[in-house]
């Protein structure tokens, strides 16, 4: 048996995207065990329901995370709509769907850039982020904000994408897609990238289900589970979740790459079939006492769960957000066992960690 040492990894490390701390118990060059630790950016956002009323909390929920913001505001607003029994107009559902898919595209391209940076391929990182700027331009043209879109209110949306603007947006997305194909070839076919990603961090299908993994991490191990199948604009349009069978880092990278092209297709389908009508339903009164609301959203990183409870006043009793990275941390500790030290950054990046979501 080799000598055991403990290497502390994080929360500050050039290759880590988010502040998570790992105590890596090493035997020579192999990791025997990894103990995670979070809590560096706990802001107590769930406690703010005592000070901000339920209409102002949409903007607090949006600022839980800097990458998956729109998903959180959709989830919170929809959970309160479920609680109060409000049905939002169909145009609002389609608009929410379009912005959610745009957010998925920008989040995955951001992740691809970070993955390239993680194994040292900085010029590919810069190419990805330069492409992402064009996606952020589309978001800014349609809503006013590059990342923080601020279009949701309880009852619908208050910003509109006029039908005349849709063809221009589709044109921009098509040109983004051409450059994106070139970048994704670099990830999938390049020899040096393959050496870093193939056969690394293998998670079998049974393990992925036992450890309650979510999102692309689960789908890359062969389980076709996607909350969008049950959500409104997607259920009508019909789509198949993208899966892969190998379960290694390469499979997760491939799933995310293909999800971007699927999102561009979904945006086109939504822009073609978007119905006309109102943008929001007017609200009456406060959340009734003892009422509860639930909702699930497919964020770029997995499934998010929202629970709200009202007590008759304008302040909610409880807002609970359960984000996907909190569940994927368990999967991460499992795949870290038995890997090489040089593969640790790949493992951490492959779950697409978003620790600000985890800790709120």
């Amino acid at each position, binding site marked *: 048996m080799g000598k055991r040492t403990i290497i502390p990894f994080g929360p500050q490390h050039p290759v880590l995207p988010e502040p998570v701390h790992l105590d890596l118990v090493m035997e020579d060059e192999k990791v025997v065990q990894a103990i995670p630790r979070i809590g560096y950016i706990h802001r107590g956002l769930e406690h703010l329901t005592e000070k901000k009323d339920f209409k102002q909390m949409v*903007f607090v929920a949006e600022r839980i995370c800097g990458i998956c913001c729109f998903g959180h505001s959709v989830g919170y607003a929809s959970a309160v709509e479920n609680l109060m029994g409000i049905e939002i107009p169909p145009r609002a559902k389609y608009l929410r769907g379009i912005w959610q898919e745009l957010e998925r595209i920008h989040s995955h391209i951001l992740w691809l850039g970070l993955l390239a940076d993680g194994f040292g391929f900085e*010029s590919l990182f810069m190419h990805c982020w330069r492409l992402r700027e064009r996606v952020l331009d589309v978001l800014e043209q349609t809503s*006013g*904000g590059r990342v923080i879109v*601020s279009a949701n209110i309880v009852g619908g949306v208050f910003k509109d994408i006029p039908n005349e603007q849709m063809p221009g947006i589709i044109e921009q997305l098509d040109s983004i897609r051409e450059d994106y194909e070139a*970048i994704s070839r*670099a990830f999938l*076919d390049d020899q040096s990238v393959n050496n870093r990603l193939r056969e690394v961090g293998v998670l079998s299908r049974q393990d992925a289900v036992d450890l309650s993994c979510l999102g692309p991490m689960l789908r890359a191990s062969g389980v076709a589970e996607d909350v969008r199948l049950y959500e409104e604009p997607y259920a009508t349009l019909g789509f198949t979740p993208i899966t892969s069978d190998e379960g290694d880092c390469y499979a997760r990278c491939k799933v995310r790459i293909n999800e971007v092209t699927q999102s561009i297709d979904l945006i086109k389908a939504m822009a073609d079939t978007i119905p006309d009508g109102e943008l929001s339903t007017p609200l009456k009164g406060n959340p009734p006492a003892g009422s509860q609301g639930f909702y699930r959203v497919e964020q770029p990183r997995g499934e998010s769960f929202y629970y709200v409870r009202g007590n008759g006043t304008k302040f909610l009793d409880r807002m609970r957000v359960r984000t996907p990275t909190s569940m994927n941390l368990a999967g991460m500790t499992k795949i870290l066992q038995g890997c090489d030290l040089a593969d640790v950054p790949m493992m951490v990046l492959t779950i697409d960690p978003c620790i600000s979501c985890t800790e709120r």
Partner: protein
Amino acid sequence: MGLFHLGKMTFTSTFKKPATRLYPYEQREPFERTKGHIVCDIEECIFCGACARACPTSALRVDKPDRTWAINPFDCIQCSSCVLVCPKKCLRMDNGRPAAATTKQVRLYHQHPYSQAEKEQIAKEEAERQAKIAAARKAAAEKKRKAAEEAAKKAAAGGEATGGEASAKGDE
């Protein structure tokens, strides 16, 4: 082929202009809907305070007696809640990014600013009005007191026993 997939992109990038911009000498035109800063059309404002109550960060301060509307642009998160609740629709989101500054400042709008002479005139008129009210009250109180004295004198002339009681009550 497993090598150099970025060849075409890298080669063409050599001849195109850079992807970055020489800020602040070159600045990008903001898009029409960019969330910039809140502008108030102060002449329409009725100082109801709905915007200040809706603001999630308490960046707005509305003062009805002073007829001022103030925003702290460093607290504003550009969420447009105030724009949505305004009953007179006098608030809008403008697309210019707020300028950087070295100290935090508050932007104040004041409706119908009165000049000094106008303010003095108004104060004088108000003082006169108050004096008239005070004089009228005093006169009414005088009259009441005199009426009470007359009634007491009549009651005293009426009888000894009731007069004694009345004077005891009067002492209290």
